């Protein structure tokens, strides 16, 4: 898998090398992941193709005896819903969560 740190947006204290013009208007969406553990058949499509490496296969088994995905990095989820689209078992989906409004003025 690609190194996910490259895709991590700058945290507090870091600066964009060049600040996107619309950085204070565009919000990166954030998703909340729902995993229907007992529907999963362990194909790993979601884990493999999540662009933010949010998911990892579990150590434990579900009732059918498969490993299932766990959100180990939920804060990184951008609600792209690729996991949901790829899942052949209708076992994972994502809902957008409202961002809490930042209390600074965007650094201007």
């Amino acid at each position, binding site marked *: 898998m690609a190194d996910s740190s490259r895709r991590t947006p700058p945290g507090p204290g870091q600066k964009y090398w060049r600040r996107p013009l619309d950085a204070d208007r565009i919000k990166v969406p954030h998703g909340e992941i*729902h*995993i*229907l553990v*007992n529907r999963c058949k362990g*194909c790993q*499509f979601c884990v493999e193709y999540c662009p933010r490496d949010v998911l990892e296969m579990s150590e434990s088994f579900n009732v059918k005896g498969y490993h299932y995905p766990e959100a180990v990095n939920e804060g990184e989820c951008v609600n792209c819903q690729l996991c949901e*689209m790829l899942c*052949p078992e*209708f076992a994972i989906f994502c809902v957008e969560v409202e961002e809490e409004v930042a209390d600074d003025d965007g650094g201007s």
Partner: protein
Amino acid sequence: MKREVAAPATEAHPMDELLRMDRIPHIWCPTCGLGTVVTAFASAVDKLEIPLDDLAVVSGIGCTGRVAGYIKVDSFHTTHGRAIPFATGLHLTNPKLKVVVISGDGDLISIGGNHFIHAARRNVDITVICVNNFIYAMTGGQVAPTTPLRANASTMPYGNFERPFNIPYLAESSGAVYVARWTALHVRRLTKAIAEALQKPGFSVVEVISPCSTLYSRRNRIGTGLDLMKFYHDNCEIKHGADTRELDIGFQEEITVGKFIDTERPTYVESMNTWYAEVFGDQYEPYEGSAK
């Protein structure tokens, strides 16, 4: 598909509304791509906001043939190879209905091959989603007319020596007005192609290359469905408008995907109405369906 989740997260999925939940879990194997194709189809229907009462899904026999039994719209699971003639009848009775055939390569291209070419020739206004897993999966991995040369099948234990059909070329030369090919991995582009095909008046075909983990890839020792998804990721080339004669698929060779044909031609009903209006003049009332 609603996105608000009221019920506990472990109980409901946005897709559930479109599925016959009494039949879920489906019978498809782990790492089979068929469930993904169902999601792509459902997303296309959702995107176009097609009222579910105006939609009908017809399947034939085979692993893909199960789709008609899982989708919660009017659907019919026909006998082997007969999805297209059933869909043609349904469409002609009620041309306002969106009739979609979702079936496999063996069902549509081999056993129903004749129906496929003639529905394309007549430009019957239906959409065909042909899931191509390169093999007769449900019956035990027999060679199909789409099995790549040299691939192993239970009836080709030394590798296939029959030249396979190239589905987009077959569809185009028979007269289809929309032809695209994607894989189960290209799920967003696939959704877009299905949406375009659904909106296209006339015979539209979307071929979906999808992993069959249990028969095709195990027999050929090429891993699981996940390995096939990775293979598609690394070996698919998108070439919109490519010449369909060049779209043969070799065993574990590069797969060309994209939208190849998007053209206009009078549909079967339009041709009939135009011609009979010419022959009979005012006496002819254009046919708009016989369903009440």
